[in-house]
Structures are given as structure tokens and as C-alpha cells.
């Protein structure tokens, strides 16, 4: 428990100090990873904590992003203090509607129904003029009041604060009676119902909160890029965030954090021409093999590595 707190503390301290050493790109890279981490945390609440495998998380992310773009286009010079909550609310409401329907199904069927609803959202922005069609649309600017998000350091701060807030809130949430109930649902929903928990509202609430957090990540992403595109809602985005949390290790908030960092850094590593020369264009190969190896060797994801070492040491000791 203590070592985990130290780990998380070190990560956030490192993130807070990063701008002191990083260049403009280093800042960008970590902002990107932090947004991915928020996105991954949103899914961790469903998959890792509640046992609901959602394969349509990109829709909530994309809706947060599109809400930012469309609201800013509609209301010139919109202020951050209502723009951000509005985007989060849009994503949360869509998640509430999707959850209300899809929670009627279970297991793989649930996976596919969430995919179906995400694809519906995807085709709405892809095929209708609402969101600018397939090429996407630009944000008219950057929110400047009350924080000037055009300044990289300010935006870095906002992203870090959002990540810390999401991490903290989820940490509390999972220890609370609500979070414990989610854990019970993951372990054995039938038993929970027999005990007297109406599980549906719990799952629905988790779903909506998760969607809202994904919307937050989407909002930050849209402001960072200044551009949104239907591909933000595509199924492979839902897939890649799922890969992130599995790689990091399910059932731990740290796992989502680690997974987001690991996937991004692995990509950077295998793409690096400095390391691989002209073979860098086949970077998918290295990434794919690494993923396969980690699935084979790390049953609990990257989070499980210390435990594996400990087990090995103990085995040697005996």
C-alpha cells in the first residue's frame, strides 16, 4: 500500500517537474500521454473496477472533443469555466443513454452493443455536415478566459491538474461504498443482487461517470490539437485505449497510468530512426511482438512486474 502511494506520488512529482527540463516537444509528448492516461482511467473504471468491457469508449472521447469544437464555433470567445463542464456533460449524457440501453446485455454482447452505439456516433459526425464531415473541423481558437490555454505551460498545468483530479477522485470513489459495490459486481453480480444491491443503477452510474471522464480527455485533446476529426470516434481508438489498460494491468488505477505511458513510449522507441535506422518504418512489428510478449509473460500487466520479481526471489530463497 505504502509503496504504491510512493510510486504514484513520484509519478505526479515527476510530471510536475517535467516542464523544467523538457523542450517544447517534450511538453507536447507528455501532454498527449496525460490525456491518454485520463482516457485510459475512464475505461479502467468500467473494465478494471466494474468488469464491464466497453468497446465504444472512443465515442465519449470524440463527443467531448466535438462538443468543444462546436460550442466554441457557436459561442465566440467562450469561457473555459462553462465550456469544459458542458463538453463533459455532453459526453456523460450520451454515456448515460448508451449505458441505460446496453446494460441490458452481458459479456461479449455488451462489448458489441457499446461498439454499435459508438459506431452510430462515428457515422453521425462522419456522414453528416454537423461536424464538418470526414475531413474534420478546426476549433476557432483556444479558450483564453480565465486561463490562457494557448500558453503551453498553462495547458500543461491544466492537463496535469485534470489527471491528478481524475486519479484522486477515482481513487476515493473506488474506496467508497459505491466503489466497493462496483468491485462486488465485478466479482459476482448475482451474489450482489441476492444480497440486496440493485446493481443496475450502480453500473449505470459508473458508465456515465466513465463517459464523462472520457469526455474530459476528449475536450483536452481537441483544445490541444485545435482540430477534431471523425477518426477520434473510430473503433480502433476504443481498441487502443483498451490495449493500454490491459497492457498496464487491469484492476489498478496505476495500470491505466502505466499503460498510457508504456504504449506511447514503446511507439516512440520503435519508431525511432536513431535506434532502428531504415527498419523504423516497420515499427508495428516491434510493437506487436512486445505486446505479444507482454501478454504471454505478464499475466497481470506491467503493474504485476514487482509481484513477479518478489515471487521469483521468494522461490529462489526457498
Amino acid at each position, binding site marked *: 500500500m505504502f509503496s504504491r502511494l510512493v510510486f504514484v506520488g513520484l509519478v505526479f512529482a515527476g510530471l510536475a517537474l517535467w516542464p523544467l527540463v523538457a523542450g517544447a516537444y517534450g511538453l507536447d509528448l507528455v501532454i498527449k500521454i496525460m490525456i491518454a492516461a485520463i482516457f485510459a482511467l475512464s475505461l479502467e473504471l468500467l473494465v478494471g473496477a466494474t468488469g464491464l468491457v466497453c468497446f465504444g469508449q472512443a465515442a465519449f472521447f470524440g463527443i467531448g472533443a466535438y462538443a468543444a469544437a462546436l460550442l466554441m464555433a457557436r459561442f465566440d470567445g467562450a469561457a473555459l469555466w462553462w465550456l469544459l463542464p458542458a463538453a463533459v456533460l455532453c459526453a456523460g449524457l450520451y454515456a448515460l443513454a448508451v449505458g441505460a440501453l446496453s446494460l441490458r446485455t452481458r459479456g461479449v454482447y455488451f462489448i458489441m452493443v457499446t461498439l454499435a452505439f459508438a459506431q452510430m456516433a462515428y457515422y453521425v459526425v462522419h456522414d453528416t455536415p454537423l461536424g464538418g464531415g470526414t475531413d474534420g473541423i478546426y476549433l476557432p481558437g483556444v479558450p483564453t478566459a480565465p486561463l490562457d490555454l494557448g500558453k503551453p505551460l498553462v495547458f500543461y498545468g491544466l492537463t496535469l491538474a485534470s489527471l491528478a483530479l481524475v486519479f484522486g477522485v477515482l481513487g476515493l470513489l473506488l474506496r467508497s*461504498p459505491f466503489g466497493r*459495490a462496483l468491485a462486488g459486481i465485478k466479482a459476482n453480480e448475482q451474489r450482489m443482487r441476492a444480497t440486496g444491491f440493485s446493481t443496475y443503477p450502480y453500473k449505470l452510474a459508473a458508465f456515465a461517470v466513465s463517459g464523462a471522464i472520457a469526455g474530459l480527455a476528449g475536450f483536452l485533446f481537441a483544445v490541444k490539437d485545435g482540430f477534431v476529426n471523425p477518426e477520434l470516434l473510430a473503433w480502433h481508438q476504443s481498441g487502443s485505449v483498451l490495449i493500454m489498460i490491459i497492457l498496464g494491468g487491469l484492476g489498478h488505477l496505476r495500470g491505466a497510468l502505466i499503460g498510457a505511458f508504456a504504449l506511447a513510449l514503446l511507439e516512440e522507441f520503435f519508431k525511432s530512426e536513431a535506434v532502428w535506422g531504415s527498419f523504423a518504418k516497420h515499427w508495428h512489428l516491434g510493437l506487436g511482438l512486445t505486446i505479444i510478449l507482454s501478454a504471454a509473460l505478464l499475466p497481470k500487466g506491467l503493474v504485476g512486474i514487482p509481484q513477479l520479481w518478489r515471487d521469483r526471489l521468494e522461490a529462489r530463497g526457498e
Partner: protein
Amino acid sequence: MSEVLLRCERLTRRWGGIVAVNEVSLALASGEVHAVIGTNGAGKSTLINLLSGEIAPSAGVVELLGQDVSAWSQPRRARAGLGRSYQRNTIYPGFSVFENCRLAAQARRPRAWRWWQSALACEQTNEAARAAAQRAGLTDLLDRSAGLLSHGQKRQLEIAMCLATAPRVLLLDEPLAGMGAEETERMLALLAELRAGQAMLLVEHDMDAVFRIADRITVMVNGAVIASGAPDAVRANADVQAAYLGGH
């Protein structure tokens, strides 16, 4: 006659053309252990599922504490005082014994909106959990991971989790299944202790145990009740001997 806590009237469940439970009527009184016996496939587990609300009946009425609960969902019935255990272990193996009980106790005081507060902050819930574990004889094992318990202890934990919800009626689905002689004795002692103030429905295959502990026995064959009454009367019943005990 003491107060009737759970009653069902002509309870029926059909699966397609098969009648799994056929017009079963029962009444469970406070302080009474009521055993339901019957061969495999007689509809005993389905009966428990109907009573607890896990599946909906095709026809019939269920009354809990004098209230018609036929249309209530399972969680609602559970909160109203109907506890049940399962034939297969349904504990949460990853949690500690205490957390298993605490989570069960939490069902009575959900307080789900207090998301910022630790689940351990509710002293009443913790107390209820500890009390339930104590009654089931698990006080020494509170911090043990439930998955590491012996089979008998797991069955005890099942009972403890039921108790933690402070039920008035207990529906126990084969609590003795797979137990050794010593574990059986301990469980029977536990059940005997629990009977005061509660009604207990017991589905069980261990005939010796049933006849030792039950106040009343109902025999089911092919979904229907063929006999019901005091153990001695049931033992003497010709139909029962023909249909069920005859095999022994």
C-alpha cells in the same frame, strides 16, 4: 403458532413445456427450520430462485412479512429481509472474510452517494459485519483472503454473508454439500443456533442431517409437493417412501 414470515401460494414456473415448479404452496414461520427434499431435478433450486426473486414465476404469489412481493425484484426482496445462499460458493474470493461480510452488510446501508468517504468509515456496517462473522464462527479468520479458506469455512462464510444483511428469512441451498463429517457437525450446530427469530428454508440432500434439524419437511417430486409435515409424519408417508425413500 408463531408468526408466518414467508408464504407462497400455488407458485409455478414453466420452461417451455416443462413444469419445473408446479403449484407449490409453503409457509415459513419464525423460529422454524423447514427442509425441502427431493431427487435431483425435483425443482428445489428453482423454488428457491422463485422465492428469492431471481427468476419470475409463471403463476402464483409470494408474500414476505405479510406483504405481497411477487412483483418485487430480487434486491428489493433482499433488502426487505430475505437472505439466501447458493449451492455453489458465491463468495468474493479476492476479498478478505471481513470485506465479504462488510459488503453484504453495506446492502442495508448503501450510502452510495458518499463517494468521497471510505467504505470503512461506516462503523455500523463494520459492526454488523463483525457480528455476522462471529455468529458464523469466523472471528479468527477476518483478515484471511476468502479464496484461501477451506471448503467448510467457505460455506460458513456464505451463511455469515446472509446474516450480515440481517435477514428475517433465510433460504439455504444445500449448505452441507461437499462437507466432511466434522464440518457437517459444525454447520448443523450453527444452523440450530440461528433458528431463533428467523425462518429458515433448507434445501438439502443429507437426509440424516435434515431429519435431525428440520421442524417441518416438504417433499418434492417433479416440481410438485407430494407430502409436507413433521419429520416423523413424512418418514411414515407411503407416497414418500415409494417415490423417494424407497430407493434407500
